[in-house]
């Protein structure tokens, strides 16, 4: 069931928010021992809020489609009075005295928070194999990672624990778990959704967005959480448009860019086959396919890495004297950041501006780009390298290869499921749009995936 279907059922009095919430909590109780998707559940406050939502809807007070819908929040978003660990022992005891902007907006939209989802330590990694809180497992194959860093959110949504969970995305952390878990994941344009109240990993690259089981649900959530926030210096004052696409939109006249370089290099053959199949489908839906050469994405990725390494190390500098409080992989990245000179950081920020100008030219010819989200499907827990098209590649670098550069450019990107490999693991398609044109990529995503995402047998 999707958010929109549940919202209709609530208003038709076929189901209550209390029943939806109890079902979600029961699903968490049943599955969390094996998936480890949730760090905290908020059973009592969820029941109280659900009861309120039922009463409000009964007396005609309607806050919109999220009213009474059970959701989860990644444990990097501050929640007033509820532990917010960031997946790290550094913050294990932290109880914020305020909500993140996204949490405020979801509460104002009437959503029912049932808990906080687990993540890669400090949101700094792609596996969600957390040394402090245990590995999060992929609902499609529990020996595999769910992706990260928003791995608990991906697993929770895919497993049907909640209708929606929030994610943060600095180098693919919404889109990667969406791809590996077979859900929809939306990274909005930089500045579209406030970052206030989220532990920063990287001031320049952090984006907040939803993971859902349908494209229309992602549009609903974006509408609720987007908008100007004076507490976030990068927040945009642009008006928030309507995002909800028609159930079966036409792609007539939409110019879909198909990269000739980089994005289809070194892919698992099953990933390439599935994504190319979707590309052909856009044409059958009326889109015009435009082959395009994109700027040097490998270089863009390196610039993004320099900025991320430096900024994340700066954020964590006060804690780095306690090396035992960090996992090996995160500590390694923080150490790399400490070794970079300030001149490299400044030059990376200058290159960012230069690359943004280069990339703008691509979007003069096309309305969106279609690419794979990840060159591989979900790796096994503990796997550090993968053989892709005959070459061995570090899992972290491989999995971020097709998504990281989009964070540097600040462009909106949507990941939708586009099939499964022979092992039954989901494959993701990435749709990248112009800045602030989320409505277009949601329309393309909805045309390609008009139904709810498939669910694993659990």
């Amino acid at each position, binding site marked *: 069931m999707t958010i929109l279907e549940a919202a209709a059922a609530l208003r038709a009095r076929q189901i209550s928010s209390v029943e939806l919430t109890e079902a979600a909590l029961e699903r968490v109780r049943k599955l969390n021992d094996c998936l480890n998707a949730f760090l905290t559940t908020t059973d009592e406050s969820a029941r109280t809020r659900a009861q309120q939502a039922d009463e409000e809807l009964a007396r005609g007070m309607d806050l919109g489609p999220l009213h009474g819908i059970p959701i989860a929040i990644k444990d990097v978003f501050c929640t007033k009075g509820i532990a917010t660990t960031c997946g790290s022992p550094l913050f294990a005891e932290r109880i914020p005295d305020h909500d993140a902007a996204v949490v405020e907006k979801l509460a104002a939209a009437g959503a029912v928070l049932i808990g906080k989802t687990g993540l890669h330590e400090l949101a700094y990694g792609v596996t969600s194999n957390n040394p402090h809180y245990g590995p999060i497992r992929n609902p499609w194959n529990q020996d595999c990672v769910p992706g990260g860093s928003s791995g608990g959110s991906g697993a929770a949504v895919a497993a049907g624990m909640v209708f929606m969970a929030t994610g943060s995305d600095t180098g693919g952390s919404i889109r990667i778990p969406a791809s590996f878990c077979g859900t929809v994941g939306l990274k909005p344009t930089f500045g579209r959704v406030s970052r206030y109240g989220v532990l920063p990993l990287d001031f*320049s690259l952090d984006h907040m967005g939803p993971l859902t089981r349908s494209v229309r649900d992602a549009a609903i959530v974006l509408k609720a959480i987007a908008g100007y926030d*004076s507490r976030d*210096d*990068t927040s*945009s*004052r642009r008006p928030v448009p309507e995002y909800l696409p028609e159930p079966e939109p036409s792609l007539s006249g939409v110019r879909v860019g198909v990269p000739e370089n980089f994005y289809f290099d070194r892919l698992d053959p099953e990933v390439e086959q599935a994504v190319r199949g979707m590309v052909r489908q856009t044409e059958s839906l009326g889109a015009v396919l435009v082959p395009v050469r994109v700027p040097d994405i*490998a*270089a863009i990725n*390196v*610039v993004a*890495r*320099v900025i991320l390494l430096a900024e994340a190390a700066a954020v964590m500098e006060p804690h780095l*004297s306690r*090396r035992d409080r960090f996992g090996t992989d995160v*500590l*390694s990245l923080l*150490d*790399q950041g*400490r*070794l970079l000179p300030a001149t*490299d950081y*400044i*030059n*990376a*920020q*200058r*290159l*960012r*501006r*230069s690359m*943004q100008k280069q990339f703008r030219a691509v979007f003069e010819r096309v309305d969106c780009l279609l690419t794979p989200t990840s060159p591989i499907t979900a790796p096994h827990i503990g796997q550090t390298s993968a053989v892709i098209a005959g070459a061995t590649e570090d899992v972290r670098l491989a999995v971020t290869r097709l998504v990281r550069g989009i964070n540097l450019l600040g462009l909106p990107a949507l990941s939708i499921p586009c099939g499964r490999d022979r092992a039954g693991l989901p494959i993701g398609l990435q749709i990248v749009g112009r800045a602030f044109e989320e409505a277009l990529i949601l329309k393309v995503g909805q045309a390609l995936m008009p139904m709810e995402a498939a669910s694993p047998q659990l």
Partner: protein
Amino acid sequence: MKDWRQIALGNKLDIPEADLGRIAPALDSMEEVFRSLVGGIPPDIEPAVIFHAAEGAE
């Protein structure tokens, strides 16, 4: 390539020798690409960082 051990020592960073050995290859490969890009930055390109002289300005 840069001597990451010397940089760590010079900056008084408490990074153990074994950890430095693990991260050096990653830094070396990044450095190779990054250095070639830096040479091509036009002098008038400013960094993409944000600062507003007045609070609330955009």
